[in-house]
């Protein structure tokens, strides 16, 4: 109370601008460079080239098989990659946190540095490793004398899924490791001294504690997978069209801007809805973490 009045007196005397006015310059910048262009995309999507304003572009695009295939591809790839990231991230985080070995933590920090690198480098590396003229296939043909190697999946959706799992798993590991750090180890000791074996301890003690972190990491990865463009572009597969690829193809390759805007609006709606869900999950987990910290005092 005292600090509030002490702060209010000089503010009232010296600062003639109201507090909210300071938000105007950055809001204007954001509005001009982001919100206004985004509104124009929505506007463009209801303004066909023939003039006037109607929803005809939506009918055409949403009814086309190209769009429906792209939507299906996007959802299947994103869901599979997210599931893979959750399983892999949980396993790896579990070992780092509860079966520690020298260098394990350092390794997980190295992974953080990788996140500073662009995603498409993963696809580039996978092309060297598993591509049709890559290392694994080369070894196979040298060993067996066959004309072609056994691996030819990089140009399929599974190549994209593998690359996305590799790139996005750290995003699941980070919140999990933070959650495991807050976990009271006495619970684990108690459970195992009462005779619970490791799988039971993981299922009954660790997993329930990790669920909020898993939900937060999983929904973030899902959003990022839905919007991933670089990995899909670098696989260069004609058969793998996702929504971002469709936006790029329609606008840049076909010059069909109204069509591209329709696809863009659809993917923005899906993505913003999921991201809102993610933020709700994160803000629900935050009070819980505060409580644990207070309890650990």
């Amino acid at each position, binding site marked *: 109370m005292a600090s509030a009045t002490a*702060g209010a007196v*000089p503010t009232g005397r*010296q*600062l003639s601008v109201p507090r*909210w006015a*300071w*938000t105007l*310059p*950055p*809001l204007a*910048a*954001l509005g001009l*460079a*982001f919100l206004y*262009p*985004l509104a*124009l995309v929505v506007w463009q999507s209801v303004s066909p080239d023939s003039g006037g304003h109607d929803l005809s572009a939506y009918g055409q695009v949403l009814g086309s098989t190209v769009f429906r295939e792209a939507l299906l591809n996007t959802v299947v790839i994103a869901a599979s990659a997210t599931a893979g990231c959750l399983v892999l991230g949980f*396993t*790896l985080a*579990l*070992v780092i946190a*509860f*079966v520690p*070995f020298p260098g394990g933590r350092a390794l997980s920090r190295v992974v953080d540095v*990788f996140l*500073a*690198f*662009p*995603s498409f*480098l993963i696809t*580039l*590396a996978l092309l060297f490793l598993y*591509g049709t003229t890559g*290392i694994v296939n*080369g070894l196979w043909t040298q060993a067996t004398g066959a004309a072609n190697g056994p691996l030819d999946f990089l140009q399929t959706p599974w190549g994209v899924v593998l690359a996305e*799992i*590799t790139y996005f*798993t*750290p995003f699941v590991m980070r919140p999990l490791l933070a959650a495991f750090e807050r976990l009271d180890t006495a619970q*684990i000791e108690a459970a*195992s001294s009462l005779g619970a074996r490791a799988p039971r*301890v*993981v299922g009954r003690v660790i997993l329930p504690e990790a669920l909020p972190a898993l939900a937060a990491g999983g929904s973030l990865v899902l959003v990022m997978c*839905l919007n991933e*463009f*670089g990995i899909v*572009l670098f696989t*260069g597969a004609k058969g793998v069209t996702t929504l*971002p690829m469709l*936006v*790029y193809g329609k*606008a*840049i390759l076909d010059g069909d801007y109204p069509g591209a805007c329709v696809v*863009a609006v659809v*993917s923005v709606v899906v*993505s*913003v809805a*999921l*991201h*809102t869900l993610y933020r709700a999950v994160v803000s629900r987990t935050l009070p819980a973490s505060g409580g644990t910290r207070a309890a650990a005092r």
Partner: protein
Amino acid sequence: MLLHGKAARLIAQAVFLVLFLPLFALPFLVIVVASFATDWNGALPSGLTVQHYREALGGDAAHALTVSLLTAVAASLVALLVGAWAALAAHRLRRAGRGVMDTLFTLPVAVPSVVVGLSLLVAFSKPPLLLNGTPGIVITAHAVLVTAFAYQSVSAALARLDPACEQIAASLGASPARVLWRIRIPLLLPSLTGAAGLGFALSMGELSATMMLYPPSWTPLPVSIFGATDRGSLFTGAALAVVLMATTLLVLLAVSRVRNRASYR
């Protein structure tokens, strides 16, 4: 300790390494080795060469590196200014106002980068604001994408800041501007430099929005990496990728040194 038997622990660690190394360590190692290889379709590369680097750094690609560096520096500085200003202004608002600012400034993360590119193309292709075809449109796109991260990292740091310092300064008669300049910004310096480094790294590797709107005269490094691999010159692409990773790491290292000095002060 979850596993008590020594054998069980060894198995868990072995599983970890078997999953971890091929997935995370191998990809970047492969790119680095491939960039020096003459050809590689066996266990080991056929021969060593620096030819790919000579190709990569002669002419066009050297230009691409300069373009990427200039874009990343400009975009991260603009994003830092806008993001930090917005976070500082939002911090002084009431709960509802802060919520609106949070939603607006994290929105660029939720919108697909390709759509950010498309929207700028739609908005700035005709007068009065004709940015299409100029470096400005690439820098604007990167700045929009990076601002959200700058905002998040500065507002997280603000939430952790001890209000006592600025209250003491204000009670001793320091004006709000002086409190901001002498107390808040110095205390926020580590997070500000961190945000700048993150923004730089993200901008260096940005491909999605860039593919939508780069003019031929302003081709950033990720686009030339895509160009090389699309032509089938995977090894040149690898050399360019190593240049990209090395530059990003060097700048991050420099930023973290500045950051350590800032937090030491």
